[in-house]
């Protein structure tokens, strides 16, 4: 999800965070029934043994939120890291909304950025209450009490948090809890702080929705249309009935498919595969990939929308008057997210509605969409969030596709039986909500001195937002910002730049995919800049630095991260290496790529990544996200594509949608730019510059410019 956020917005949000906290605190406290724990505010509970539970409002898909938000509370609380645990928040938008959006959900690399002040304030408020309680208990001045590692000390008196929680909950919380200065940080910025989820994820005990079993639960799998937009006409379950463990099969109410119930997952898959179904394809996508590409090209000839900067005529005039012109087209395929845990969730009845067990990325989306499907109010839909086995954007569907499927499956059985809906990997690869295919076409004018004089940049892709619930929010004057972000708002000072957009229309569903529009725009922009550098005989790094004005805050930080990558990697002018940099989600990342090329055989040897994400709350999590973002990008740019034949997806599972393997993974060295700016996200920003850095490195080594992804389409083989 791409929400632009200025520094001023951040400060406003931070102020709102403080207010939300104060409003949210029940000063009398609530002793949770059956648990001797005191709720000091919506984000912190402390039990009588001094163990601290941080209520984490964002879900954990691997990005490190359970560690990150817990760090913020533990820091301000002066807690002992070993006795702090993380717990996922329930669906409760008032208490747990994303402060940047106003709804409860995770995405757009916002978790740390929107929570930074809020969770610190929650920790500080709790600390202040404990401190005052201890002062009253001991009859000392609060100012004479020292707090460290979960222990309060005043002279000879010592006690852990748990001894003071009962009195603390009788105190009114401070309206403005005092926060630490950065110099006082002990946990924020600590390089070797262990992740909160590294024990349960290494002994098999971590619970994902896939692992939930409830008494009386049945398993469901769905037979869906082989073409997007197909409508079920009829089905025959005769063969499915012969599968041991088969229970029943019913048409979904919108005729999007047939839900098959069984006594276990295997039987559900087998019985589902045995269903014979007839479909009406009148409104379905029936084109093949080559026809779709031809349509993208037609749409680029005559753009529908101006997306920013100057008009096309102005750009064209500047290009016409130039000494030289450079033209290029880039084609990027549909991509599946393919999180390791196939989509699934469990739905069960409650006294008042339903409860989901889900690796839930967006409780607010789910409450809205399932509420409409089942005629329930949002508050009648409870959500128990579990670890998510990856998402990369796939679980944040505004339509809540898989949760709504589960809701229908549950309703069709009479709303009494718990249902676990499971997608197979084939369902996932063929199930849509893809990163859309994208075409970029650019014409660039260059003067005799090698400077850009004009730039006509046309983008064709399927809008994520149009026709969906996010349209009003994300589309302005016809332009879905996520289609053009990364080009339209490039930090480089490009004169006479026209950016235009056409929407490719198709029943194929598309969605944000780790870094959203930047997944394709960064590839085009950073490949084009490399081409300009080559064409004009400039060092690609020096040329980029020349396009940045350091009086502008964002451009200054872009230059900073570019220089950091240059120096960190030992870049020398003339090196046969690849470079790319990109700004996304308020974070700057620059990458130097080293590759080996032997004829058509390529190996990516090493990536040197520099990142500026403001205050580095968890440096090792930041490194992990750069490594992981790079690896996720490589998987896509090297080999992955979703293609269509007569509307049907040609790939089906990992053998033909190969994930990056250990043997493909380059070394990754990361340097984090030191900063006191507000923290920004790291989950997505490592993705955009990685692909173009590698493509530019392949060009440097082989002289072959990659204009189509995946790179295997250019005849390269990755070994």
């Amino acid at each position: 999800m791409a929400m632009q956020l200025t520094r001023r917005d951040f400060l406003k949000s931070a102020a709102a965070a403080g207010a939300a906290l104060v409003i949210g605190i029940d000063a009398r406290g609530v002793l949770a029934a059956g648990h001797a724990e005191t709720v000091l505010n919506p984000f912190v509970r402390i039990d009588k043994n001094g163990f601290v539970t941080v209520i984490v409002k964002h879900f954990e898909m691997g990005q490190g939120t359970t560690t990150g938000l817990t760090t913020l509370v533990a820091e301000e609380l002066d807690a002992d890291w070993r006795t702090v645990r993380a717990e996922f928040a329930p669906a409760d938008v008032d208490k747990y909304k994303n402060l940047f959006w106003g709804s409860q959900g995770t995405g757009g690399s916002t978790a740390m950025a929107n929570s930074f002040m809020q969770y610190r304030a929650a920790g500080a408020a709790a600390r202040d209450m404990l401190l005052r309680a201890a002062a009253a208990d001991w009859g000392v001045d609060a100012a004479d009490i020292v707090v460290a590692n979960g222990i309060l000390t005043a002279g000879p008196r010592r006690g852990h948090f748990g001894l003071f929680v009962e009195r603390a909950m009788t105190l009114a919380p401070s309206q403005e809890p005092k926060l630490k200065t950065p110099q006082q940080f002990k946990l924020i910025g600590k390089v070797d702080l262990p992740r909160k989820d590294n024990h349960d994820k290494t002994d098999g005990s971590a619970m994902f929705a896939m692992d939930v079993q409830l008494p009386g639960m049945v398993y469901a799998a769905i037979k869906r249309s082989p073409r997007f937009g197909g409508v079920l006409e009829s089905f025959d379950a005769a063969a499915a009935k012969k599968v041991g463990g088969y229970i029943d099969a019913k048409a979904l109410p919108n005729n999007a498919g047939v839900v098959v119930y069984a006594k276990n997952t295997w039987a559900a898959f087998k019985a589902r595969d045995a269903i014979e179904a007839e479909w009406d394809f009148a409104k379905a996508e029936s084109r093949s990939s080559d026809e779709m590409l031809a349509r993208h090209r037609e749409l680029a000839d005559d753009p529908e929308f101006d997306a920013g900067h100057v008009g096309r005529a102005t750009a064209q005039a500047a290009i016409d008057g130039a000494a030289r012109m450079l033209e290029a087209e880039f084609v990027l395929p549909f991509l599946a997210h393919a999180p390791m845990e196939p989509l699934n969730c469990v739905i069960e009845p409650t006294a008042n509605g339903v409860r989901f067990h889900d690796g839930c990325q967006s409780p607010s989306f789910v409450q809205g969409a399932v509420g409409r499907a089942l005629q329930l109010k949002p508050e009648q839909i409870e959500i128990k969030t579990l670890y998510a086995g990856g998402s990369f954007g796939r679980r944040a569907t505004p339509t809540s596709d898989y949760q709504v499927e589960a809701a229908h499956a549950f309703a069709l059985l009479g709303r009494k039986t718990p249902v676990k809906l499971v997608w197979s990997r084939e369902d996932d690869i063929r199930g849509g909500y893809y990163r859309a295919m994208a075409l970029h076409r650019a014409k660039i004018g260059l003067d005799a001195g090698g400077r850009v004089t004009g730039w006509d940049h046309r983008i064709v892709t399927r809008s994520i937002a149009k026709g969906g619930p996010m349209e009003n929010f994300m589309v302005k004057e016809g332009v879905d910002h996520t289609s053009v972000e990364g080009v339209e708002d490039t930090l480089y000072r490009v004169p006479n730049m026209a950016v235009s957009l056409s929407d490719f229309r198709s029943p194929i569903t598309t969605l944000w995919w780790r870094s959203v529009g930047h997944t394709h725009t960064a590839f085009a922009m950073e490949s084009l800049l490399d081409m300009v550098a080559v064409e004009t005989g400039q060092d690609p790094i020096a040329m980029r630095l020349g396009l940045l004005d350091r009086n502008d805050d964002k451009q200054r930080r872009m230059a900073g991260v570019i220089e950091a990558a240059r120096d960190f990697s030992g870049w020398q002018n003339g090196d046969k290496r690849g470079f790319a940099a990109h700004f996304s989600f308020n974070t700057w990342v620059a990458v130097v790529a080293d590759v080996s090329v032997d004829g058509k055989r390529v190996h990516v040897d090493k990536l040197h990544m520099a990142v500026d994400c403001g205050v580095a709350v968890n440096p090792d999590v930041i490194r992990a996200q750069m490594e992981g973002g790079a690896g996720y990008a490589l998987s896509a740019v090297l080999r992955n594509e979703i293609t269509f034949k007569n509307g049907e997806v040609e790939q089906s599972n990992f053998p033909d949608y190969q994930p990056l393997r250990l043997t493909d993974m380059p070394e990754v060295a990361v340097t984090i730019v030191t900063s006191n700016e507000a923290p920004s996200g790291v989950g997505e920003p490592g993705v955009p510059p990685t692909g173009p850095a590698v493509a530019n490195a392949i060009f440097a080594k082989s002289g072959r410019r990659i204009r189509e992804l995946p790179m295997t389409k250019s005849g390269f083989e990755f070994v």
Partner: protein
Amino acid sequence: MQYELNINGRRRSVEAEPGTPLLWVIRDALNLTGTKFGCGVASCGACTVHHNGTPIRSCSFPVEAAAGNEITTIEGLDGRVAGAVQQAWRENDVVQCGYCQSGQIMSAVGLLSRNPSPSDDDIDNAMAGNACRCATYVRIRDAIKLAAEKLEA
């Protein structure tokens, strides 16, 4: 059909259709959910368990072939090699989403059990079948080397 299985050192009697992959018996019938479903076609390794000490992909291994043999899942791991591997995984903070990591660890324990000081090529051969969409591979490789060091000490 009734099958007698030896799982994590315990005899377990389970009812399953013939041909059911061992994965689904372990997960759905025995509720040992540390072993994961990722692809169903032995292409990702999330379902890796040990069959008489050797890593296998349980999603493509019929339950009847497991009868009478020793099956170990992540929940049943113990011993020096497993301890070293799990400790190395924690020290290196390998995990991200964590979904594939049971399988990664089962493959790594299998490797180090028969080859306590593997080369990079050995690691490639043993681990290339275990996919991680979070791409924690840099740390997986380092953790295997760290575990090997621990075993040497």
